[in-house]
């Protein structure tokens, strides 16, 4: 079956602009996670959804970052007034209710802020 998909695969934006990153999880997966990987670093947790609600937003680095999930499926991560330090690969993962820690990742969106 289809895996996790993310769009766009690459995004170059100017400092100060807003960007939206999209994630389509595996069908039927109730949990959805956003992570980011900055250059030379490990993956950093951003936010987690169970259904459409976000019980844990503790990893969002500032109030410029927000995310939503609709219909228990697609999620959008929005970064307002982008800064150069936002440049990273943004990864989405989903998991089933049965084994939610075993997360399946999408290919990521590489964001470059110039």
């Amino acid at each position, binding site marked *: 079956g289809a895996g*996790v998909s993310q769009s766009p695969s690459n995004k170059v934006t100017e400092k100060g602009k807003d960007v939206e990153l999209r994630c389509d999880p595996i069908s039927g997966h109730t*949990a959805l*996670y956003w*992570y980011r990987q900055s250059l*030379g*670093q*490990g*993956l*950093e*947790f951003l936010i*987690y959804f*169970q259904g459409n609600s976000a*019980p*844990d937003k503790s*990893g969002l680095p500032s109030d410029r970052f927000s995310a939503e999930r609709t219909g228990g499926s697609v999620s959008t991560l929005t970064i307002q007034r982008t800064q150069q330090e936002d440049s990273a690969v943004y*990864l989405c*993962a989903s*998991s089933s209710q049965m084994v*939610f*820690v*075993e*997360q*399946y*990742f*999408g*290919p*990521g969106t590489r964001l470059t802020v110039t």
Partner: protein
Amino acid sequence: DQQVKQNSPSLSVQEGRISILNCDYTNSMFDYFLWYKKYPAEGPTFLISISSIKDKNEDGRFTVFLNKSAKHLSLHIVPSQPGDSAVYFCAASVINQGGKLIFGQGTELSVKP
């Protein structure tokens, strides 16, 4: 505050030999541990996991060992193959906190023919 650490940024091994990747953690609340493998320009792929109630889990050529008293886990790959060359991430979670994964910085494994 790096709760999960992979102190070796890289490892080079000969094909057919054993690869051992190490990971240390500081948070004693972690009760589930995972290894992910990542190729360039792709998302991480789940490899193997272990619950804190076990000390070993095996899946084919991959075995994960957990030493809770030392807060240390390791991934053994036997025999190593050139296709195993990738970046390996260790991750840890507290099950009742929703499955949020805390990742190490990764170890780049190179298996030479």
